[in-house]
C-alpha cells in the first residue's frame, strides 16, 4: 500500500507536531506525521514535571500536558498522525517504507521533514567499565519506567551527569521514592541553571561531585555499588548504590538521516542543514533536537514552526539550497554549531540564533564571529560551560559582505 501526502513528517515530538500544525495553517493539504511510539507527543510524554511550553505556548505546562496539547492542536488542525509506525528504509529521495500493525506501508511525499529527536548515550557508549548487572538506566528509560509503566526502580541511586536533564532525573527518582546518593560530573561545575540545581538537587541535599567520573560499576546480578574517581588526582572510592542513571550526553537520533546518505555534520552528528533547515537532499528537511541535541522542548517546537515556512516555500517554488553555501568553521573550543551552513541571501536563522556548544569550560571569554578580515559580531561571557546551550543572535548575517567562510573563535576577554 502507498500513501501520498504532500508532506511527511517523521517523529511526533514537539518539533514534528509543531511543523505539522504550521504546515496545515499555511494551507498544505495533506500533512502526515508518523511515529514509532504507540502514543504521539515525544519525550515530554514521560517528563512528568513542569517547565514546558514557555517560549512556544507562552505558559508553563508539565511534560505530559504539553505533549497532549501538541497532539490535540495537530488533530484539530487536520494533521493525520500514524503511531506504531516505524520507518524502516528509504524508497527514493522523498519516500519511505514503514512497518505498522496493519502491514507494510510505503509513503511517497513531495517533501519530508526529519524530526527524529535525540537520545542519551547509554553506559556502553560511554565505555564505563565493570559488570553488567540490572539497575542501569538512562533518564529516558527511567522516566518511562516510573511514569508510563509504574515499575519499581531500586533504592539508592547515583546519577552520572549534571545537565538540565540530570536534575530531571533526580526529580523522577525522588518521585519513585529512591535516595539519590550523589550526582557526578567530570567537569568542574554543573551544566544547568542554578534554579534547576536548587529545585532539582539541593532541596534533597543531593551532593554534586564535580571533577569526578564513574570508573566502574560493581555487582553481578544487580548493581551493588560504583567506583568513582577524581579526574585530577585519580583517587578512587566506592559508593554504595543499587541504581545508576546515565543522563544527558546527547546524540541525535540520526540513523535515518545517515541511511538516506544525507550529508552529515560531523561535529554535531546531525544531518547538515542550511539556515532554512534544508538538508543535502532536495525535498528533505530536518528540525528540532535532531539538529541541536538537546535544547528544551519549546525551542524544538519553534524549530518545527520555522521549518514549516521553509517547506511551504519549497512546495511553491521547488527551489533548493545553493551548492555554494557559506560554511561555518570554528576552533577547538567549540564543539558544534547548528545550523551548519548558510545560504548567502538568508538574513535569519531558526529561532533567530546560531545554537552553539563549547567543548571545554571557559571563564571570561569572548566569542567572535569573523568573515575574512571583518569581525561581524562579538560578545563577552563570564563563563561558558559545555552542554549548556549558547545562542548567538543571527544579526551577524546582516553584516556579511562576502561569501567567504564564517569563522567562530573564542578568546580570553581582555
Amino acid at each position: 500500500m502507498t500513501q501520498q501526502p504532500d508532506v511527511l513528517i517523521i517523529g511526533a515530538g514537539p518539533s514534528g507536531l509543531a511543523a505539522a500544525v504550521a504546515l496545515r495553517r499555511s494551507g498544505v493539504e495533506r500533512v502526515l506525521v508518523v511515529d514509532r511510539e504507540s502514543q504521539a507527543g515525544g519525550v515530554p510524554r514521560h517528563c512528568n514535571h513542569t517547565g514546558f511550553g514557555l517560549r512556544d505556548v507562552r505558559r508553563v505546562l508539565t511534560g505530559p500536558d504539553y505533549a497532549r496539547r501538541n497532539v490535540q492542536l495537530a488533530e484539530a488542525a487536520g494533521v493525520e498522525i500514524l503511531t506504531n509506525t516505524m520507518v524502516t528504509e528509504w524508497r527514493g529521495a522523498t519516500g519511505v517504507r514503514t512497518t505498522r500493525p496493519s502491514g507494510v506501508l510505503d509513503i511517497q511525499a513531495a517533501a519530508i521533514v526529519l524530526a527524529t529527536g535525540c537520545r542519551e548515550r547509554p553506559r556502553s557508549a560511554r565505555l564505563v567499565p565493570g559488570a553488567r548487572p540490572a539497575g542501569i538506566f538512562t533518564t529516558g528509560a527511567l522516566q518511562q519506567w516510573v511514569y508510563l509503566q509504574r515499575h519499581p526502580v531500586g533504592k539508592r541511586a547515583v546519577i552520572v551527569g549534571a545537565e538540565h536533564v540530570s536534575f530531571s532525573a533526580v526529580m523522577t527518582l525522588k518521585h519513585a521514592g529512591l535516595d539519590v546518593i550523589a550526582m557526578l560530573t567530570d567537569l568542574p561545575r554543573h551544566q544547568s541553571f542554578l534554579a534547576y540545581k536548587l529545585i532539582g538537587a539541593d532541596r534533597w541535599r543531593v551532593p554534586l561531585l564535580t571533577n569526578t567520573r564513574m570508573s566502574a560499576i560493581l555487582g553481578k546480578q544487580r548493581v551493588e555499588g560504583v567506583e568513582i574517581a577524581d579526574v585530577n588526582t585519580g583517587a578512587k572510592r566506592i559508593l554504595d548504590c543499587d541504581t545508576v542513571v546515565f543522563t544527558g550526553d546527547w546524540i541525535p537520533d540520526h540513523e535515518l538521516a545517515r541511511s538516506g546518505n544525507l550529508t552529515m555534520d560531523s561535529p554535531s552528528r546531525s544531518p547538515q542543514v542550511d539556515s532554512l533547515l534544508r538538508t543535502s537532499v532536495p525535498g528533505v528537511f530536518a528540525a528540532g533536537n535532531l539538529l541541536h541535541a538537546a535544547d528544551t522542548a519549546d525551542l524544538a517546537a519553534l524549530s518545527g514552526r520555522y521549518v514549516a515556512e521553509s517547506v511551504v516555500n519549497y512546495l511553491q517554488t521547488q527551489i533548493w539550497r545553493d551548492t555554494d553555501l557559506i560554511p561555518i568553521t570554528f576552533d577547538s573550543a567549540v564543539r558544534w554549531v547548528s545550523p551548519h551552513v548558510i545560504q548567502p541571501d538568508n538574513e535569519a536563522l531558526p529561532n533567530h540564533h546560531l545554537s552553539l556548544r563549547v567543548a571545554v569550560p571557559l571563564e571570561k571569554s569572548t566569542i567572535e564571529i569573523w568573515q575574512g578580515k571583518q569581525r561581524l559580531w562579538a560578545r563577552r561571557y563570564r563563563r561558558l560551560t559545555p552542554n549548556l546551550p549558547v545562542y548567538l543572535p543571527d544579526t551577524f548575517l546582516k553584516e556579511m559582505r562576502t561569501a567567504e567562510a564564517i569563522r567562530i573563535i573564542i578568546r580570553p576577554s581582555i
Partner: protein
Amino acid sequence: MIYDVAIIGGGVVGSAIARELAQYELQVVLLEAQNDIGKSTSKANTAILHTGFDAKPGYLEQRLLRRGYELLRDYGAAAGIPIEPLGALLIAWDGAQYESLPKLRDTAHENGVTDVEIVSTEEVYRREPYLGQGVLGGLLVPGESIICPFTTPLAFATQAVANGVHLSVNSPVQAVQMDEDGLHSLILPNKTIRARYVINAAGLYSDTINRLFGHDEFTVTARRGELIVFDKLSRPLVNHILLPVPTKITKGVLISPTVFGNVMLGPTAEDLDDKTATGTTAQGMAALMQQGKRILPELLAEEVTATYAGLRAATEHGDYQIHVHPEQRYICVGGIRSTGLSASMGIAEYIVTQLGEVGLKLILRADFKAIRMPNIGEAFPRPYQSETMITRDSSYGQVICFCERVTLGEVRDAFHSRIPACDSDGLRRRTRAQLGRCQGFYCSAAVMALLSEETGQSIEKLTGVQA
C-alpha cells in the same frame, strides 16, 4: 526415573551432545546450573564459525573443528541459525606477520582447507578499502563465516527437547556418587538424578566436575576476552572477518561484522582466577580501541553499542580435554577453549560414537523431528519486513525494540517457545530486544512490562531489587 545419559552443562557443547543423542531411542537429561541454555561462555564469544584452517594438525581439536564446521554450516541452514559466509582476511601489518603467511597457508592446506590463499596488498585494499595504512599483504580464508552465538545452542537444545530430552535448568551438580547397582547419582540442590552414563560438558567448571568423578587431568583457567560492539552504521566499513596474524609476540585482535549487522572489535586475552569475572576493564577497552584505530581508523568515529567480556575455558594443555572412562561410564568433555561454537557438532558426533563404543546401545529413532528457529539475523527476512506475517498477526507489525526492529509478536513467541525466555537476558538472546544502540532508552520499560506479565515474576524479582 533412570536416565540412559545425563549431560552436565547446557552450553553450546552440552546442548549439541543432547541434540545428537536425541536421535536415538534413549532417555536423556540435560542439566544446566543457570536458569537458561547458553548463558555462560557460549553467549559471549566472537561469534565466528571457524573452518579450522589454523588449528594444530593432528590435534583432536583440529579434527572435530573441521567436522563441526561442515555439520554446523549445513545444520544452520536447515534450522534457521543465521550464518553469513563472509570469508576472513588475515592482515599482515609487519614483516614478521607477513613472513608467517606462507606457513599459515600451508597449515590450512594440510588441515584440508584448500581454498586458503595469500593475497597482495592491492587485493586486500580492494576488498577492504577502509583498512588503515601499512598493510603488507593478507591471507584469504573464504570459508570463515559469522554465526549467531545465541541461536546456535538454543537450536540444539530446542531440537533435543522437541525429541524427548529432559532439560533441567537451575540444576548445578553438587556431588556425584556411584551406587551399588552401578548407576550414577548426581546430587542437585533439590533432587537427585540417576543415570547410566554421564557426560561432563560443564565448560569453565568441567575441571571441578571432573574431580567429583575422581579425575584430575586438567585445570580450567578462565581466559577473559573483552569485546566492543560498534553501531550498525559502521557495518559498511567491513566486508570480511578481519583476523590478526598470530605471531610469537602478539596475538592481536579481530574486527568482524556480526549477524545482527554490527561490527565487533576484540577480544583481549587475560587469564583470571575468578570464573565469574565477566566485567570489562578500562585497560582492556583502551587497548582494543588503540588496536582498532590502526586496523580500521574510521570505526572509532562510530558510536559504541555494547561492551562485554566472555570467559574461555582454557587449560594447561593445547588440545581439548576429552577423556573417556569406560569403567565409570563417564566422559569428560573439557578444555574446549574458544573453538566450542564451531566444533560443537563435531564434538557431539564424536562423543556419541565414544558412548557407543563403551556400551551404550544406539538405536535410531524413526520419528526424529526437525526444527526451525525464528530468524534474528540481518541477512535473512525478519517479521517486520513481512507483509504476510503482519497480515496473519498484526503483532508482527508492532515494532517494540526500535533499534533492533523487534516486534511484539517475536517477543511473545520467545515466551511461548519450547525453551521459553525467563528473564531479560534470555529475551535478548532470543529476539535481540534491548541489544541495540539505545540500550533500552526507548523500549526497556515496555519490554519489562511484557516480561513481568508473561513470566508472572515481579519487576523487583526480575531486576534483583532488594525488598
